[in-house]
């Protein structure tokens, strides 16, 4: 039972991460290779602030999300300077710099990582069993989904999508495209940051290996496979990624090669999707 709950918590974390990436990739056309950076800042934020300040859970939580927002401002500065491939490369650079910093710095405890991370505390009730965490993460997933659903019907969101399709047309309407990119990036950062805090508290131990370039590519792949630009796409992508190893277990593939097999299949699906259905399994048809 605990195992199923563990899978469930992971699924919920990846849904949040994919929704966050979807906001950038699907609606603003910003193919960022630094998804794991914001996830990492959320996780390290809660770990460091809660152990250094020792003032409960929620103030460090707000500080961690605040750090993600500051990082979001840096990303929106980059998005204002360069576009397309060069945006991807700049975020790739940020990802590698971030990994170097958390791997080598004293305040992140380098490659040893940080253990004993605080758990969320709601009116005196400490959340610490897998069941608690699956409900806690589930509440966050629902909150984010409801927020995004509301947000997608706002006129503001139409302008965000318009910025992706034609920046100059938005400029002609007298609107500043950089502003809409920034909003999109900041929303994405908050969602990733929340996922990071959930992961840190749930695992109660984090080290740099969870926030590598591979992780960033993985999150991006989940969105691209599920279908970007729709609410349901990232959820389907996360389901495929989490359930794939269970499916392999069902086929009786030995444990030794199952991990590699999972990545090979995932890579294959990714290549086939971007080659034949660039908008994902459930993606909308591209506007020509």
């Amino acid at each position, binding site marked *: 039972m605990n195992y199923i709950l563990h899978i469930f918590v992971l699924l919920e974390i990846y849904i949040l991460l994919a929704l966050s990436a979807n906001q950038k990739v699907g609606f603003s056309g910003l*193919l960022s290779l630094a998804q794991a950076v914001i996830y990492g800042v959320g996780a390290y934020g809660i770990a460091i602030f809660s152990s250094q300040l020792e003032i409960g859970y929620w103030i460090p939580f707000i500080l961690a999300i605040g750090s993600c927002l500051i990082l979001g401002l840096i990303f929106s500065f980059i998005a204002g300077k360069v576009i397309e*491939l060069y945006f991807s*490369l700049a975020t790739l650079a940020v990802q590698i710099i971030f990994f170097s910093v958390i791997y080598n710095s004293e305040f992140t405890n380098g490659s040893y990582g940080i253990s004993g991370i605080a758990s969320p505390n709601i009116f005196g009730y400490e959340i610490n069993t897998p069941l608690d965490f699956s409900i806690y993460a589930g509440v966050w997933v629902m909150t984010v989904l409801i927020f995004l659903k509301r947000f997608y019907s706002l006129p503001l969101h139409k302008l965000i999508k318009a910025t992706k399709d034609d920046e100059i047309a938005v400029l002609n309407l007298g609107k500043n495209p950089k502003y809409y990119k920034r909003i999109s990036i900041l929303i994405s950062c908050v969602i990733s940051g929340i996922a990071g805090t959930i992961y840190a508290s749930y695992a109660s131990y984090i080290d740099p290996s969870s926030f590598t370039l591979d992780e960033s590519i993985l999150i*991006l792949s989940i969105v691209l496979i599920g279908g970007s630009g729709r609410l349901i796409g990232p959820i389907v992508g996360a389901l495929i990624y989490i359930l794939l190893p269970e499916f392999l277990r069902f086929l009786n593939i030995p444990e030794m090669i199952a991990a590699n097999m999972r990545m090979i299949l*995932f890579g294959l699906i*990714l290549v086939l999707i*971007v080659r034949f259905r660039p908008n994902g399994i459930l993606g909308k048809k591209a506007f020509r």
Partner: protein
Amino acid sequence: MLEIILQIVFNSIVSGIILSLMVIGFNYIFSVTKVFHLAHAGIFTLGAYTFWQLTDLGLHWILASTVSLSIASIIILFIEKAVYSPMTKKKTDSSVTLIASMGIYVIIVNTIAMFFGSENKIVSLSGDTFNIIDVIISTNQIIQLLVGIIIIVIFYLGIKLTKLDLSLKAIANNDILGEVYGINSKRIRSLVMIIGSAFAVIAGILTTIEIGVEPHSGMNITLSAAAVAILVTRLDVKYLTLISILLALFQNTVEWFLNAQWKEGLTFLILLLIILYKTEGLVSYKLRKN
């Protein structure tokens, strides 16, 4: 102190030459096909592992290298025909092609890890070392240096003498206009893919004889190669080699005085600043101002 500096400079020239093999391959592929070919890392590992496996079976190294090169050529041609070429034809954004390339990298590396495991593979040709003015030099380093320089010189003279250089630059600059002037851009693309991958395979083989290769070690050198490709957008073997050696010198200095992990962080910090403030790169063609 002096001997440390000399040692760092010598090691940097050797690793810089290997890096420049990766850079030349990567840069020509990127300029001509507009594919940010991160799967280059996979080809590097593939070449190295095929070479290791064949020499392990007792094949002579010349035969082993030839077979490795052939296998890599077949695979890269398949990738080009099945993925890259159709995507370019559909005018897919190059950042999406980058993702496809990463997918290919994941497939190649995990397939290798599945069959051969993740431990480091070394093909040691010779274990001798000797000293010249306090600098420790191994015979393997001399082999790396000589093979690398010979390959680069042959390539440089080859493209100059056969006028391939001009066709490559034409396609890199404007493929449609190039076709109007009678250059077969499809053939040039496939050719560049094969030559570029051959460079990666040779770099992989040269790495196996000194420090060895594990499935994921292709990515670090490819990221450095990608950094040089962004710094030098001009298709010029001389500049590409020079900047590669300088980058290797920078990385080895950082590695010596700080530690190995900071070298990538600092390389990419410089790269980030250059992307933001001089997107066309440090060594580039002069652009016509509008």
